[in-house]
């Protein structure tokens, strides 16, 4: 190796090998209409999801997707939890995934993600179906959700079972989030910053939006929850980069990143302002 090439290699190593390997894949799934109870369309949501996936692809990862009518429950369900689950060859076959769909009002099952159509007697992906990561036969380390109520603060612990499979970070929204053609570039920025600043802080920085309509604000309140087997490990995972590939540990501790006091302006208990 020439001295010149060696120097470049060392520079890149400073980012803990962010270069993709052949088996590293990313996955995105977006719907713009639904057969199962939602009558409106969301024509920009797939653009937002796509911007993240295409930008991640620029880092060398293999791109996978399941859009529109292909957003089905079996692609997100672990086979150890449901016999018909196939997440290990779909959503959980990737080290990072982004899902863009309705997040219904949460209940004790946490995030209730609207699937395109009814399947196995339900329209929603919920906690009993979710377990991601290498310990459950998959690959996922980073789960992102462009979806309302996807990490609702009072119910954040509903993600802990899914993390038993080995997920490092779950990133979503507390309360309502927004969809706009002018948010698309921010999903591109998320993919970029996640390689330098850390996935969890990049999510909070890029997805936080305090303004909206000539001074009338409808804030988006992103929350990222990182896991580790000690307080120190969880704090370290909260700064993990895409491609860093930290070892999995048991999710005994969590580290939550969010904008202090962010108020999604809802009147339900799961929409109250985030704590300090």
């Amino acid at each position, binding site marked *: 190796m020439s001295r010149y090439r060696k120097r470049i290699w060392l*520079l890149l190593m400073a980012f803990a090998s962010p270069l993709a390997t052949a088996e590293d894949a990313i996955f995105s799934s977006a719907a713009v209409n639904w057969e199962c109870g939602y009558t409106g369309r969301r024509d920009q949501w797939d653009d937002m999801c796509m911007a993240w996936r295409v930008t991640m692809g620029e880092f060398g990862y293999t791109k996978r997707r399941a859009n529109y009518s292909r957003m089905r429950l079996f692609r997100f369900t672990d086979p150890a939890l449901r016999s018909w689950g196939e997440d290990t060859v779909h959503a959980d076959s990737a080290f990072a995934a982004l899902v863009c769909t309705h997040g219904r009002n949460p209940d004790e099952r946490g995030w209730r993600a609207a699937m395109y159509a009814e399947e196995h007697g339900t329209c929603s992906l919920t906690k009993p179906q979710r377990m991601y990561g290498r310990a459950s036969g998959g690959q996922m380390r980073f789960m992102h959700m462009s979806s309302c109520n996807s990490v609702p603060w009072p119910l954040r612990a509903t993600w802990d079972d899914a993390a038993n499979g080995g997920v490092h970070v779950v990133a979503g929204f507390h309360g*309502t989030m927004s969809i*706009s*053609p002018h948010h698309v570039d921010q999903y591109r*920025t998320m993919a970029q910053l996640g390689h*330098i600043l850390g996935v969890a802080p990049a999510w909070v920085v890029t997805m936080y939006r305090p303004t909206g309509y000539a001074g009338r604000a409808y804030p988006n309140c992103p929350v990222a929850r990182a896991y580790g087997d000690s307080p120190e490990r969880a704090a370290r995972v909260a700064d993990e980069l895409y491609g860093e590939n930290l070892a999995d540990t048991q*999710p005994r501790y969590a580290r939550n990143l969010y904008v202090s006091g962010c108020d999604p302006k809802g009147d339900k208990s799961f929409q109250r302002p985030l704590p300090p």
Partner: protein
Amino acid sequence: MSTSGSTRLHSILFAMAVLAAPVAAAATPESLLATKAVNPNLGSTDAAVDIFSKDYSKAFDLALPPAPQAEVEAMFDRVFRSTPRALDPLRLRQARDVAKLLGLQEPPENVPSKLGTMLTVVGTTAYGFDPFTSVFLFARDRRDLRPLPFRNAALVQQAVAEEHLRLLGQIGIDASQIQFVQTVLISSRGEDTKAPLPDSAEGEVHSFLTYVSRVLAGVQIEGSYAKVVSANKGNVVGLDASWPAIAFHPGVRSPKCKDAATLKRETLPLVQAVAGGNEANLVMAYVLRPVRLGGQRVFVPALKIGVLARGAHDRIEGEDDLEEMVDTYVDLLADRLAYDADDLIDDDSRD
């Protein structure tokens, strides 16, 4: 902007903001520095707040901003006349520019070490500039930094906010174009998964985030913002600036706007498409927004309509849900302006 100009920017904003939002105490962390320079007549009034209706015509009437058509036209006339051709105040063009501002190691002329297709890596710092979107990114690896105790962070929050404003002034973000500026704390709250921390317990601070949105002569600019992130006082770790040049659509000839009836006729089908017949709350603002015209990004006046629907009925589980806030836009000018569609289909051609 000269150094004295950026100092003046900082002083003005800081004085306004301190009046609006007193410095946060450790126990009551509020966002620091918030001010608004937008014309409130260009946005919905309180009459539209929390009003949900299946009568979208009534919802439109409640949410239409109060500025009369003549006032809106006069305002856009001022905007068109007073805006220099291709207004482009940002001083960042390449990685070296921000490195100089922050006193960092400057990247050599031709740095071949790329991360992805956009980011240039120098040591533990990465830079990137997308000339089409005008997004400038700068970020430093911060993995060796630990969160701050909350009370310590609150003590330096004001100083960090000042640093951020100074940096924004240095990169060319002029006070006259700032609609809203806010410095918030990114909390880092650790807990045992078997024994969650009560909300009343004091957490830690991961970083400080300043957010700035843009206005031009009182009109909100969509898609323009700047964010600065610091791990601590004197330690900027991130900059995400989308502050593109303002060039108006070449078809803009006159500020003549559509009347309210025309705007309503064009808006209602969009609301119907989003809300699907369910109850919806509307909130609106007159804005300038970027659109694509060939390979160019140009700005057009628009009525922005935020649609918050509720009542979607899961046919299995039954109960009604509040949905997302969906932004949609209607062109405001009476003259038709052609440009590329916003919406893309994410099919195989994208991979």
